[in-house]
């Protein structure tokens, strides 16, 4: 008995003695390679464009893109703010809709049978194609963009969350029953936490889709935003400025994805602690 305990606590101490220096080195090992690779690509791109004498309107060199970005910083920032607002509102709506729908479908077999097929059908409808209809209904303001973004990104959130809610071990739910837990306590104590890793998978896919949704929605009808800006610049054959706009859009997408990942790490420490050890 005591031997078991000593061996086990020795193991515990060894694990907690991990240095912060090692952690820093490991982080650098993850960050440096992609940055070096990016630098290599940019150098080759720059050299290729300069040596071949390609027109800037066909393919601008990285330096052209960066100077276009700097010169148009106010224009980019103003339009980015419009698009960011659309994405934040649309994505939030997608989360509320997706999680809410998943909870309803998970709590009633009848609801799941009645609605799940239509949930799938809703994704077979090409959403960019219904965007013009939305513009007819709601006009050129924020609403059609928010609706399109919510429509494209709620599906992965709903489906993943539903899978997560249904992944709870039935024996665990039985155990909670024998402890006298009612339906709500079982949901809150077992189902919801076991669904969270799935929910976050859905949130990450949804984050990426929401940026695509915003651009599509602006192409259909808008008078501001980065998607609208790309169309305008396209008409002017301002290729370097288009590249600059695309980079800003990518940064918005990466930032949203990063925020979701950060939230995931904060909310699921147990999940990531385990995965790190499995890799090691």
């Amino acid at each position, binding site marked *: 008995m005591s031997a078991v*305990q000593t061996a086990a606590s020795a193991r515990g101490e060894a694990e907690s003695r991990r240095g912060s220096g090692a952690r820093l080195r490991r982080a650098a090992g993850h960050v440096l390679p992609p940055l070096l690779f990016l630098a290599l690509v940019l150098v080759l791109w720059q050299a290729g464009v300069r040596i071949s004498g390609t027109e800037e309107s066909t393919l601008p060199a990285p330096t052209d893109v960066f100077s276009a970005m700097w010169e148009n910083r106010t224009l980019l920032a103003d339009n980015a703010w419009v698009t960011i607002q659309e994405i934040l509102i649309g994505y939030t709506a997608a989360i509320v809709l997706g999680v809410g729908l998943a909870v309803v479908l998970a709590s009633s077999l009848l609801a799941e049978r009645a609605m799940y097929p239509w949930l799938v059908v809703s994704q077979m409808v090409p959403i960019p194609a219904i965007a013009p209809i939305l513009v007819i209904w709601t006009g050129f303001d924020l609403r059609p963009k928010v609706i399109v973004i919510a429509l494209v990104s709620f599906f992965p959130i709903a489906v993943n969350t539903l899978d997560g809610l249904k992944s709870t071990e039935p024996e665990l739910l039985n155990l909670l029953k024998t402890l006298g837990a009612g339906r709500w*306590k079982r949901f809150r104590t077992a189902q919801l936490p076991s669904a969270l890793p799935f929910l976050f998978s859905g949130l990450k896919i949804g984050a990426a889709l929401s940026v695509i949704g915003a651009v599509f929605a602006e192409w259909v009808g808008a008078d501001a935003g980065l998607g609208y800006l790309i169309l305008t610049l396209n008409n002017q054959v301002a290729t370097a400025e288009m590249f600059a706009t695309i980079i800003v859009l990518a940064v918005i997408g990466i930032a949203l994805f990063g925020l979701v990942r950060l939230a995931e790490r904060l909310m699921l420490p147990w999940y990531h602690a385990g995965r790190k050890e499995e890799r090691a």
Partner: protein
Amino acid sequence: MTAPQEAPAKLVVEDVGKRFAGDGGETVVALEGADLRIAPGEFVSIVGPSGCGKSTLFNIVAGLTRPTRGRVLLDGEEHASLLGRVGYMPQKDLLMPWRSVLDNVTLGLEMGGVSRRDARELARAELGRFGLRGFERRWPRDLSGGMRQRAALLRTFLAGRELMLLDEPFGALDALTRQTMQEWLLDVWAADRKTILFITHDVEEAVYLSDRVYVMSGRPGRVQLCVEIDLPRPRRFEIHGSPAFVALKQRLLAPLHEASRRQLEEVVA
């Protein structure tokens, strides 16, 4: 040979049976008229081959399944639902990976409405006895198999029920850990004297731990034999070699062996 009838029983299972409709619409008899009687503070085991209905019986006593006949009396009373009245530890440890060890073992108290602070205090007092001291803030995945089972047992103990159902708690452990855990469980039980109903298919384990062992036979499940284990307590590991122990083991093994041979003959024929 049977339990003294005049003693007030903790649990009485009277002619309990369970039938349900199978996939093809045929009636499946999972359990046919089981009778058990357990006095307060007793350690009683059920042994039987897989498919003998012992898990069905367990689920009925835990309140998870309703019997199709017979009745279950807890402290002499028939309850509308046994849910929340009986401690229950299934085969899997079912520790929640998103909760620390401490928050896992306090689950029963939490569901019973005890405040988090009080629950943690009660749990901390028991960590040493359950070999979990120093691990209360760890995730369950950091624990060894034996520790996980002890954590699951502590969760069951802390839920505070007088009667605890343990379904093959050591079934997944290696032989050495298993023996250590059996000795440890006897110590814990001797200190608290809770009533334990223990399921196993290991006859040796049943003899070593129990005051009485019920043997169940399969298809349809029924209680076939009840044997008093009159070995002196406290028992230590060395008792496994004593003639009395071996004799009891043989007595329990004989009907089980007979049944499994008959089953094999049916398949071979």
